[in-house]
């Protein structure tokens, strides 16, 4: 047992760090703490990574990935968090791509994967439906064969960043007569410009626009747009859900956020002293730091198991639950730290003087919307209730 990085890993860390210092552009630096990230922001960052050969840290070399070890991937994540870079949207890179690599035909792989890698195609995910949130298998969107096309009708919801997307991968019911709800589902790729696809924004309570409803009305796509076998989509969907869970804990980003929180708490005053000196507040920050340390080492243990080929398995539910609880707690404490200046609300109201909000300290502007927004993390990606069910069933055998 040993905690230390090897000399090679340390050299790699320095390489990543210096790349981020020199290559991460200023115009994206200021974005990170802003309300809305634009599609162009994502494309710019992906292009920079791609040009460096790091367009897909988690992919195997044969598909243009880096072929990094899990320690290297971990270091890369750590350094990106440290430098507060934009995240890379997971839909194409970490969700669709592994499914394509495992189940798509050569033609599909050679067409779609490079376009994800270089940022040509922006993907989104068509899973949830209004009647099927955590209960994915009860989906109703239909795809019927008609000549050389699938004809898709139905509605998806919570389609994150669909308003940026070029493509959407859609779970469709292709055999309505199947005995079990999990059967008779297919995994189909749809160009979002196809006639009949309509993306309608859902505004969330923080005032943001991240998610959408996506409607399909007689949408015709070529039969060849199916991935893998007809009616086997549920298998691929599940593969996607358990694959590539590394990073789900968000440890590196949360560590950076703890730093930010402590910085804010060293400025905000309570009885004339920095609030970090308030015993109650300090205790809550310490508890959070300690929870995060526990999560970090649980993730490291998981990575070690994965590196031995043992697979993360349902233990990744622990990472999801604890990771999101910490992310939520961070926003709760940030809002608490900023006191009365958590109240002013600016989104959607024209600002004077460009990027600078006029009221209260910068770090306070987004604190209440961020708190509200992060409630989503215990709902999406399989709600934390579902994750506890998974632990009970898969780990504990209940």
């Amino acid at each position, binding site marked *: 047992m040993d905690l230390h990085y090897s000399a090679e890993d340390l050299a790699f860390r320095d390489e990543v760090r210096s790349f981020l210092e020199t290559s991460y552009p200023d115009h994206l630096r200021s974005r990170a703490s802003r309300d809305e990230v634009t599609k162009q922001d994502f494309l710019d960052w992906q292009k920079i990574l791609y040009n460096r050969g790091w367009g897909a840290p988690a992919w195997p070399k044969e598909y243009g990935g880096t072929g990094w070890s899990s320690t290297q991937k971990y270091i890369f994540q750590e350094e990106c968090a440290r430098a507060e870079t934009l995240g890379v949207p997971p839909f194409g890179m970490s969700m669709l791509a592994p499914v394509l690599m495992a189940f798509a035909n050569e033609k599909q792989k050679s067409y779609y994967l490079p376009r994800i890698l270089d940022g040509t195609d922006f993907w989104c995910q068509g899973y*949830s439906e209004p*009647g*099927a*949130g*955590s*209960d994915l298998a*009860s989906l109703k969107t239909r795809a019927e064969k008609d000549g050389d096309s699938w004809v898709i009708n139905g509605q998806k*919801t*919570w389609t994150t960043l669909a308003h940026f997307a070029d493509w959407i991968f859609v779970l469709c019911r292709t055999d309505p007569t199947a005995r079990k709800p999990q059967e008779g589902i297919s995994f189909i790729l749809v160009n979002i410009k196809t006639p009949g696809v309509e993306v309608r924004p*859902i*505004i*969330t*309570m923080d*005032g943001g626009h991240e*998610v959408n409803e996506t409607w399909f009305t007689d949408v015709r796509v070529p039969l060849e747009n199916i991935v893998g076998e007809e009616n086997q989509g549920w298998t691929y969907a599940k593969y996607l859900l358990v694959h590539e869970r590394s990073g789900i804990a968000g440890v590196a980003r949360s560590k950076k956020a703890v730093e930010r929180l402590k910085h804010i708490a060293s400025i*905000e*005053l*309570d*009885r*004339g002293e920095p*609030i970090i000196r*308030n015993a*109650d*507040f300090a205790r809550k920050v310490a508890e959070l730091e300690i929870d995060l340390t526990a999560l970090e080492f649980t993730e490291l243990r998981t990575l070690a198991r994965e590196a031995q080929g043992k697979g993360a398995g349902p233990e990744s539910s622990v990472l999801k639950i604890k990771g999101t609880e910490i992310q939520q707690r961070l926003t709760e404490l940030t*809002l*608490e730290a900023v*006191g*009365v*200046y*958590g*109240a*002013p*609300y*600016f989104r959607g*109201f024209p600002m004077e003087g460009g990027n600078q909000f*006029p*009221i*209260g300290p910068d770090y306070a502007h987004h604190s*209440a*919307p961020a*708190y*509200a927004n992060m*409630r*989503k993390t*215990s*709902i*999406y990606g399989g*709600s*934390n*209730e579902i994750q*506890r069910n998974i632990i009970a069933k898969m780990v504990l055998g209940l």
Partner: protein
Amino acid sequence: MDFNFTPEQDTLRDQIARLVRDQNDFDTRRKVSRSEPGWRPALWSQFAELGLLGAPFSEEDGGFGGSVVESMIVMEEFGKGLVIEPYLQTVVIAGGFLRHAGSAAQKEDHLASIIGGERVFAFAYSEPKSRFDLNDVSTTARREGDGYVLNGHKAVVLAAPFASHLIVTARTSGAQRDKGGVSVFIVPKAAKGVSTRDYPTVDGLRASEVYFENVHVPASDLIGAADHGFPLVEAVVDEAIAALCAEAHGAMKVLNQTTLDYSKTRKQFGQPIGNFQVLQHRLADMFMAYEQSVSMTYMVTLKLGEPETARKMAASAAKVQIGKAGRLVSQEAVQIHGGMGMTDELNVGHFFKRLTMIESQFGNTDWHLRRFTELSNS
């Protein structure tokens, strides 16, 4: 010992409930809060006509002979409807200052206009660095001639964008955090040297940063004794806390009911999600949090007349309970609603935001826990 409402109080509640239902449905409220001027003067006039704005004032003050219990009823019903009109600032707070310490002339000047709905007040007390400490006052009131000259910056003054008058705390002596030396003034917002920057708040209200630049205030607009305003501010704020608690438990009541209804209709895995025992227990916890909040609202309301220490402990205890309960109920309501709870379209998120803001209004949970602790162990 009596926890019953009088028939008059029951009638008052019914009237308000009907008014809120008819005039302040969720869509209307959302539209009003997102357009100018951010409130409805016409609705305010209706409040006045119905007698709501005079409910807690004695008959000799021109009111309808009610008490803090009447304000509790109003605020609870307003909480159920997420009412944004500034009853708290105008009737509870400005009215409270006048009731406790207003001179005959001040009452004469202001009370009838409050009760009649002509004047709206805001309470300018917090400052950029004061956090929740009512004694932390950097705004100065310099004695000059027969009056005072105010200079300073007040932060996040709720209802200021549509107020005609401000209640302002300012320092007439002492250092920034001294408890002595705080004085309270009534300042017309139109007074020379008062300027504001107005903005919406996350919970759909409106507030301003208020700046005082050599604002001349006659001595007759000082409420209570100069330098001795702090205990008065504390007393009025404790009343405001009691009112906020009532608003919060009203909001929780609706949020619990909405969540319960949703859990009975929303199906997952072939059955209503309310069948799942985990959600049943969490809904039971939400119910308990609500019940305890009702209890604490009654407790603090009925103890507002107690001696200072008992009153403060009651207010802090209630604020702590309501803060925790509001957080539990609002977070669980969103969680149980799932993605739908996250949307701007349902009222759930709006109750969530209001309860979140109530938690920090007039001191957050930690602040009141500390105040309670200090009083309890002193």
